[in-house]
């Protein structure tokens, strides 16, 4: 087996100073923040090594990145962990060019004869979540996205545990195939000092990629509309719990606006392809169906859900039609000739605004707009040729999280799984949605489907109550459409308060308990 893992080292965004966010641009030097492997790619790198260990002799693992270079310590860490080769495909201005990156990687994979390619589902720069799909399209390989675990069976078959909208599945696949790793708890293994020292002297192989044609440089800005947090003060957890319960009920009744923004004026014939109910992967039949339907309708605006399946379909459609593509769109202001689209980038710390003319393809983070035509294509019959066996491990959560008018979310600040379970029970009792931050989910405190944020679902409830959530950009991007955000955190300096409407400095578990008692749970 010859395995290629595509990865990217991205700036440590949490170390970028506030003053630099305000003037962020292509020429700004943020090298002081250092770089780290993005979490999805890191998981992919580790999963590939586990496969290599299982496959034994003869299995080769290489790691490749596209860009201007790679810090030596990242390369040495990869060599020490067990990679046979670390490659940089040198390219300038590739940060916001996912199609170019995908195609360069595909060329490399083809030329070197790899039969399995892994990548993280997104990288933390453009956050398009499409590089694995551009890569697969260029190779004309299938893709399985949302992979959490990889194993080899006793007879050498490759099995992936995949989390999708239709639940947690075990899928036996055969190559060649691209696997896009999602919310996996895998981290790159620790290595011994001797192994680490021996990795010194192993060089990065640098190859020149085909030069990019520099298109528009992205216009990036700090997200506007920062909320102004008012801190609540109460005498006791009980009094505070009572106040919060009143607010949760009143705000829901008052119908505070919380939604992704779509302005009127979408072009006639705009179409929404709802690919989610059918499958958590696209096969050629499905792609052909979408393409055929698209060619018949020729919509000015083609919209798909911002899910892995939606992004895959959008990417393949854009590739085969030559249309421009933008994924993860959260705001759209359309006009007669075109549209201004907005999405979060750089691990959701910045906003990218683009102006595009019709026709185009986009994936949309919110509920499908009412004014567009919805097209649901028939589910595929049977498994695709590259998938030989499937097993449902866990049915999907039918929690209606994305449509909930009130949502309660826990972060690691609640301290432990028991506190998280208490909050989940409270949410159930109140009849509200429940979600988790990614770190809380990867601690094993819940299911990945409960993740709210860049790597999970976006929600736009009327009221959002966060408990022990730190307020990272990736999480806050998932709730920016909320009507009112109430944040609870023991640390008054927590980032979450900068993006909340109301703040409560309190011990989250104590508050959850008080709210439970108030409910009579």
């Amino acid at each position, binding site marked *: 087996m010859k395995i290629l893992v595509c990865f990217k080292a991205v700036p*440590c965004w949490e*170390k*970028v*100073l506030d003053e*630099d966010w305000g003037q962020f641009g292509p020429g700004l030097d943020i090298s*002081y*923040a*250092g*770089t*780290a492997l993005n979490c999805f790619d890191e998981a992919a790198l*580790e999963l590939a090594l586990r496969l290599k260990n299982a496959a034994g002799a003869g299995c080769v693992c290489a790691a490749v990145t596209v860009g201007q270079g790679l*810090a030596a*310590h*990242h390369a*040495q*860490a990869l060599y*020490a962990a067990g990679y046979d080769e670390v490659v940089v495909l040198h390219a300038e201005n590739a940060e916001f060019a996912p199609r170019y990156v995908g195609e360069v990687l595909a060329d490399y994979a083809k030329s070197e004869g790899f039969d399995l390619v892994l990548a993280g589902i997104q990288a933390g720069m453009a956050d398009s979540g499409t590089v694995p799909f551009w890569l697969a399209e260029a190779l004309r390989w299938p893709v399985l996205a949302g992979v959490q675990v990889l194993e080899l069976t006793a007879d050498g078959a490759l099995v992936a545990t995949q989390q999708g909208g239709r639940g947690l599945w075990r899928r036996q696949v055969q190559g060649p195939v691209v696997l896009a790793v999602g919310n996996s*708890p*895998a*981290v790159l*293994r*620790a*290595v*011994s*000092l*001797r*192994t*680490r*020292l021996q990795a*010194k002297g192993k060089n990065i192989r640098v190859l020149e990629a085909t030069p990019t044609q520099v298109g528009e440089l992205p216009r990036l800005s700090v997200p506007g509309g920062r909320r102004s947090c008012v801190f609540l*003060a*109460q*005498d*006791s*957890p009980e009094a*505070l719990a009572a106040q919060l319960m009143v607010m949760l009920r009143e705000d829901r009744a008052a119908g505070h606006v919380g939604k992704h923004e779509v302005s009127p004026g979408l072009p006639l014939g705009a179409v929404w392809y709802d690919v989610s109910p059918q499958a958590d992967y696209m096969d050629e039949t499905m792609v052909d169906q979408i393409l055929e339907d698209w060619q018949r309708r020729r919509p000015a605006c083609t919209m798909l859900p911002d899910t892995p399946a939606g992004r895959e379909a959008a990417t393949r459609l854009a590739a085969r039609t030559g249309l421009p593509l933008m994924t993860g769109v959260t705001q759209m202001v359309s006009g007669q000739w075109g549209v201004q689209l907005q999405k979060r980038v750089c691990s959701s710390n910045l906003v990218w605004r683009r102006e595009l003319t019709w026709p185009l393809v986009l994936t949309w983070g919110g509920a499908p707009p009412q004014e567009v035509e919805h097209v649901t294509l028939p589910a595929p019959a049977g498994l695709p040729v590259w998938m030989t066996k499937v097993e449902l491990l866990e049915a999907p959560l039918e929690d209606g999280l994305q449509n909930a008018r009130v949502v309660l979310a826990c972060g*690691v600040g609640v301290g*432990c*799984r028991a506190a998280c379970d208490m909050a989940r029970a409270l949410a159930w009792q109140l009849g509200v949605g429940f979600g988790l931050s990614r770190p809380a989910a*990867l*601690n*094993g*405190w819940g299911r990945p489907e409960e993740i709210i944020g860049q790597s999970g679902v976006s929600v736009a409830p009327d009221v959002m109550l966060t408990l022990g959530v730190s307020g990272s950009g990736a999480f806050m991007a998932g709730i920016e459409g909320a009507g009112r955000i109430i944040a609870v955190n*023991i*640390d*008054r*300096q927590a980032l979450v308060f900068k993006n909340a409407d109301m703040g409560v*400095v*309190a011990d989250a578990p104590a508050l959850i308990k008080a709210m439970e008692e108030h409910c009579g749970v």
Partner: protein
Amino acid sequence: MEYEAVHPRYGSWMRDESGLEGNAQGVLLPRSIDELAGMMANAAREGRSLTVQGARTGLCGGAVPDGGLVLCLMQLDGMRLSDAFGEETLVAQAGASMQAIAALAQKSGHFFPAAPTEPSATIGGVYATGASGLYSLRYGAAARYVRALRWVTPQGAVWDIPRGKYIFDEKGCPLPNSSMLSGRALYADTRLPRSPVSAGIPRPGMDLIDLLVGSEGHLGVAAQLELELLLLPRALWGVVFFFEKDEALLRYTEWLSGWHGRQGAETLRCAEVFDEGALRLLAGSEAQSGLIKGLGGFPQGAHVALYVELDGGEEDALEVQLAELLDGFAQVGGNEADTWAESGETGVARLRALRHAVTELARPGAGAVRMETDYIGPAEKHGEYWRMYKQGLNDSGLRGVVYGHVLQNHMQVELLPRDAEQAMVAKELMCRWAAQVVRDGGQLAGGHGLGCLKRALATKFMPDVCKEHFAGLKSQLDPQGVMGL
């Protein structure tokens, strides 16, 4: 005087990480040094006592008020880089967090070397407790890097104290208000017993900045500090060594101590032990076990561990030293597979996080007060002290965790009594250990301060002449006695 109301039982200003809960009439939140000075002057006029707070990350209750008003400096968080002295310095107000200071310093390719493991701690708190941070082995205590101080007296006067201007001699120390800080010349008479608390004890040639450090808000407020920064090292490594037995660990730390003295002084920046209790806490923690499992899990049979960091200008030179450390490890029977190693800041941060996690995890249960030691014994006796701590825990049947700066013999012991009876046993044990530290000429407050929890113990062991000295210092700088206890 106006102040913000406090909400009893729910106001986070009434607590810190010690677990103690206090009470106050209100909270003052100055937004500028002028405002701070005005508030302190008003408090002095009205005779209201003040408890100074930063981020409330202290472990000894120093920020927990007992009546009076809380003076919270969190809004004094301004920072800027300066090159007034021709070298990069960072001017930070008291409420600036160590994390923010690190980020700003890093932007100019520098770092502040004396930061504690808790990133949300404030520089004001670090100065007030005399903290030394994770890298004290290499870089010493934070005060060493304070170039200038803007100090607000209990009467509300603002003093600018540049290093080198106000120096102790046999008469005392001149002060910025043209008066003289006199004190018994303790240092002149070597027959006098040593104080078990070094903060506030003058020495010949001592700078006023170094006298005021560790005063925990009892003599005034360090409102702004100008900090010397160091260039970020080009090479950085972190290594964890796992041992199956305590004795192997101690043989290695003895070896490491010798190595450090011969050739490691310029590169070894910390050596932190974790006893089996610490490793058990890490493995059992829901937040940490995922990372540890991800890393591959602790090696089979790992009982105790040692974490070291090395930094330097040249990667090659560091790697030679790392190979030496590995040889030393093999000499004490260590298996080189029982190590974890990372290089570069982001990689090393993964291992370093385990060290901080122990402090977070070794908390007493809800409602209980922290019982921890912060003693510094003679460095050459670190092995003896390790055995003393472990034996004490074993004999008393108390749960506890021993970890921290081993080569300086500045290990932290967290005692985790299950009930009131065990808490009494823990208190006696801490006292017994303190007596040994004092007999050995050590220190009872290595960098956490005394706070409320340790003052009585320190006073018990303090010679009368030292008590007189501290009382004299207090009466000169805070004659109305409004600051702290």
